């Protein structure tokens, strides 16, 4: 059994929308001061985008390490309550006194679930595993990943055969599966709301000239994270998708969509560092592989510079300044030729490689949800900060593209802003 779902109320509390790194940080930081906090997360698990990552730059440490600590802080703190498979449906009221309607979407697995896994053994259908960007399959009833928090299964109803199959229901000794579960709503009274709705990878198939979706050996940087992760589709082995072959060469295409008026006019902040990091994944597995990084500017701010220096010291990593104009596939080998054009000299540079990673940028998730009127978004969907008298605060990548450290700093500060709405002056 997992989180309690007692319906609480009271205006001495904070609502955090989004249970990724920003939301978790804001929530635990506020709760540890002594305030009541609710987290609403749309996924069946907490952890958000970072839960899909193999390592963080520049330390090359696993994100789960910090998530585990944050989950423990939640476990040990009865001021925090969280709701997964949940969304904010409506917000009314003002600073200090919001009335929020939360929709709980059906998970089809209730709190009785012990994560024993008997259901998976009998489930007859498979689905594309969205956690791994469809690079492998899971059963219709699934545990999102080994470190899922809460540790509880969920059912993808689009894949599930429903009551007429019902094999999992029979296999579950704990009456945990409710195929007839429906969505429900409840209301919360809160003093302030922190919007930590995070980001989504830009849809790379929109970038016509970069071949994503067209050629199997071109993938996005987030897919590369899953590919390199021990709990990913290949148990961490970087193999190219078309033939599961080991690679001798790879190209990273920076600003795939970012800094481009036709796609994302802004810089997505993390992609340079992410590609440098992924170059180290490749190097660890393939000591002799040639790595090419096509870039416009190498953005390794502050002390990230050291990480850049370390990658630059690798003589099999070649940095090429130039915007990639097109990619072509050799249909026989599946290899990709990347062609960049240097804007200044007009020179064309070509490299043929076995696999290509597009450093795709961030799109704010807030762009795809209905936000309360009090919040304003910019033309790209980032929530505009600076609501001096409001009680809603956007944090992390809901507000602007930033790295994890900045998200946590920002969220910690937002916890204080939220607390200020509850202090009588």
């Amino acid at each position, binding site marked *: *059994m997992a989180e309690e779902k007692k319906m609480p109320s009271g205006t001495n509390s904070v609502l955090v929308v989004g249970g990724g*790194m920003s939301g978790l*940080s804001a929530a635990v930081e506020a709760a*540890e*001061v*002594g305030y009541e906090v609710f987290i609403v997360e749309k996924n069946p698990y907490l952890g958000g985008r970072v839960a899909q990552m193999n390592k*963080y730059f520049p*330390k*090359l*440490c*696993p994100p*789960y*390490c*910090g998530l*585990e*600590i944050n989950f423990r*802080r939640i476990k*040990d*703190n009865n001021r925090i309550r969280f709701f997964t498979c949940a969304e904010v449906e409506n917000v009314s009221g003002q600073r200090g006194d919001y009335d929020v309607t939360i929709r709980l979407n059906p998970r089809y697995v209730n709190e*009785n679930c*012990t*994560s024993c896994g008997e259901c998976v053994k009998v489930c007859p259908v498979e689905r594309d595993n969205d956690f791994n960007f469809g690079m492998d399959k899971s059963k219709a009833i699934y545990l999102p990943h*080994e*470190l899922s928090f809460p540790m509880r299964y969920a059912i993808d109803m689009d894949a599930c055969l429903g009551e007429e199959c019902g094999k999992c229901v029979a296999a579950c000794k*704990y009456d945990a599966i409710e195929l007839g579960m429906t969505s429900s709503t409840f209301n919360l009274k809160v003093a302030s709301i922190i919007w930590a709705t995070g980001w989504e990878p830009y849809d790379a198939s929109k970038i016509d000239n970069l071949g994503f979706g067209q050629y199997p050996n071109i993938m996005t940087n987030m897919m590369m994270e899953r590919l390199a*992760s*021990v*709990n990913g589709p290949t*148990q*961490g082995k970087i193999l190219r998708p078309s033939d599961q072959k080991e690679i001798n060469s790879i190209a990273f295409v920076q600003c795939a969509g970012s*800094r481009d008026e036709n796609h994302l*006019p*802004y*810089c997505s902040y993390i992609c340079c560092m992410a590609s440098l990091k992924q170059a180290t994944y490749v190097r660890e597995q393939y000591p002799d592989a040639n790595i090419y990084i096509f870039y416009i*500017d190498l*953005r390794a*701010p*502050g*002390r990230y*510079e*050291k990480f850049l*220096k370390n990658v630059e010291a690798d003589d099999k990593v070649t940095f090429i*300044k130039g915007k990639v104009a097109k990619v072509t596939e050799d249909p026989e080998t599946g290899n990709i030729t990347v062609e960049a054009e240097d804007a*200044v000299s007009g020179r064309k540079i070509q490299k043929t490689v076995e696999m290509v990673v597009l450093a795709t940028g961030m799109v704010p998730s807030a762009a795809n949800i209905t936000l309360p009127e009090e919040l304003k978004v910019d*033309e790209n969907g*980032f929530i*505009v*900060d600076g609501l001096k008298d409001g009680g809603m605060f956007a944090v992390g990548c809901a507000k602007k*593209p*930033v790295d*994890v450290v*900045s998200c*946590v*700093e920002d969220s*910690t*500060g937002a916890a*204080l*802003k939220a*607390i*200020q709405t509850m202090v009588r002056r």
Partner: protein
Amino acid sequence: MEKKIGVYICTGCGIGESLDIDKLSEIATGEYNVPLCKTHPFLCGKEGIQVIKDDIEKEGVNAVVIMGCSPRVNYDVFKFPNVVVERGNIREQVVWSHPANDEDTQMMAEDYTRMTIVKTEKCELPEPHKEDISKDILVIGGGISGITAALEAANAGYKVVLVEKEKELGGFAAKCFKQLPTKDPYQELEEPIIATKINEVKANDNVKIYTGATVEKIEGAPGLFDVTIKSNGSSSTEKIGAIVLATGWKPYDASKLEKLGYGSPNVITNVEMEELAAKGKIVRPSDGKEVKSIAFIQCAGQRDEEHLPYCSGVCCLVSLKQAKYLRAQDPDAKAFIFYKDMRTLGLYENFYKTCQDDEGIFLTKGEVVSVNADEGGATVVVEDTLIGEKIEVNVDLVVLATGMVPSTKDEAILNLEYRQGPGLPELELFYGYADSNFICFPYETRRTGIYAAGAVRQPLNIAACMEDATGAALKAIQCVEMTSRGEAVHPRAGDISFADFFMQRCTQCKRCTEECPFGAINEDEQANPLYNPTRCRRCAVCMGACPERIISFKNYSVDMIGSMIKAIEVPDEYEEKPRILVLACENDAYPAIDMAGINRMEYSAYVRVIPLRCLGSTNIIWIADALSKGIDGILLLGCKYGDDYQCHFIKGSELANYRMEKVQETLDRLVLESERVRLLEIAITDYDKIPGIINEFLEKIEELGPNPYKGF
């Protein structure tokens, strides 16, 4: 408190089908005379929980042993007020990772039952350490970061003491002519916000301001700091709860940049440029002529091993901003910017775009070859790295985009009266910045209750400093609130246990005071440890360090873990069943072992795992206990140490490794092979490696043969 223990064995999730549960019950009621032992097929379900609750209420059970799933799950349902609860992990670490109905699997579960009962016997409920504390916040530094921290804390109702070394508040932000855009669409320069902030902080009744003042010394601990402030020749003392260090940065010493022409007329730094623009008109320093052209040289010292190896983060934007000053002054003026990489991250790209669209701003990626300046202007030669050609420009003024150096580079500033020194412990890899080494926990600090903010922590622009300072203010407030409740701060947030020193047996060896990663323990003149509970992070590294074993926690002690080790049944050597003790960091290694179980990965059933608060809390006596009992090998699994350490207690795993030298002495004394004890670094995601690590170690031990102490 007289304990009445209840043992509850869950038979769900495959446990009942894989183990002889009656034998486990017999161990509880027979070997340990536990008055109550029950089994349940679904212990975490409502009925199962009710069984336990009824026993607590009606039978007076006040200590509960749950034999079932890992303590990482169902933490919330197996929580009973004022009752000791201990969990024995026979699901993830026994039946999910070992063959069912197997003699060795059964023995494993039996040992875990013994170990958990013994642990429960030795465990007491901790009571919080509470004192009358001050909740006032000290902010050192009155620049944009310090003022923001002060205001944000004050606006949450806290009293703040703000100390600024200059006569006026404002710091570098007050020297800026304009500031970078802070809001959508991130295109226009803004009037500096600092003046408004200075007025706000001066008008805030919650903030007491000392200017022309420095911190002479800080004594005490969170909630109990005595801060001596020196101002205008006199000293005063403030009672303080927590501290924000926001002393900012200083410009890199440009006199070291002769190569770039500094020292010649008409070559200035970006800081000097800011002052020049703020005066009203950008004129040539040599003769006062209105400037028509400027060459900005980026990375003037930064990204250069000879000067500052790091990037200062803000200089690209600052030069673009200053180019705009010139363009605003004179639409015909030209600004040349020579850069390595234009680092205008995130939404600042919009601002960069406006500069790219400005026909009077010329951006060139290149390396500066030479700067020749005189009274009449300057000639800059740059090699364009893209086309490989040299470009020469003649300008009125050269601006060197010099970098930032943290104010803590050469002085402690805090002047802590701590056994371990006056400043925040320095890390080589941060170039003097008072930064955290954690991505997930950027405010983590080795001096509890002291949080760095702004440009003293990392190179940041004004808007980022304000965000950072708000976060640091929250951490300071959180620290005083948690301290007032007797709770530890991150990472064992909320832990109310604290160390107890049995001073009669202290030999003044100083190990605890030296090894505490957080400087929690001072010393008196006789070298007695003086423990500060509110500085303590409860990692128990001191407990591991103490050769006399006088340091313990109510719910975690040398005796408790030692007794668990002694509770392991060691078969005699003729049975050929070796035993391996695994001491595992509970934050990373233990979850990794769980994860192996969740993936149904199989490894030897000869291991017995004990989770530790931190591997650094390992006391050598446990190794001696285990070896003299006949346990064949000991595996210590902790977090990565070194520059990129992942230990949540910073030095814990490193200290455990350091103690391995002492372990060698123990092994020598017992005439045992050194290979019998091994320390390995393991990350939480290394679960796939667990079976290999355990099985390889076991093979090695089997090669060595049984521990000759078996049966003694």
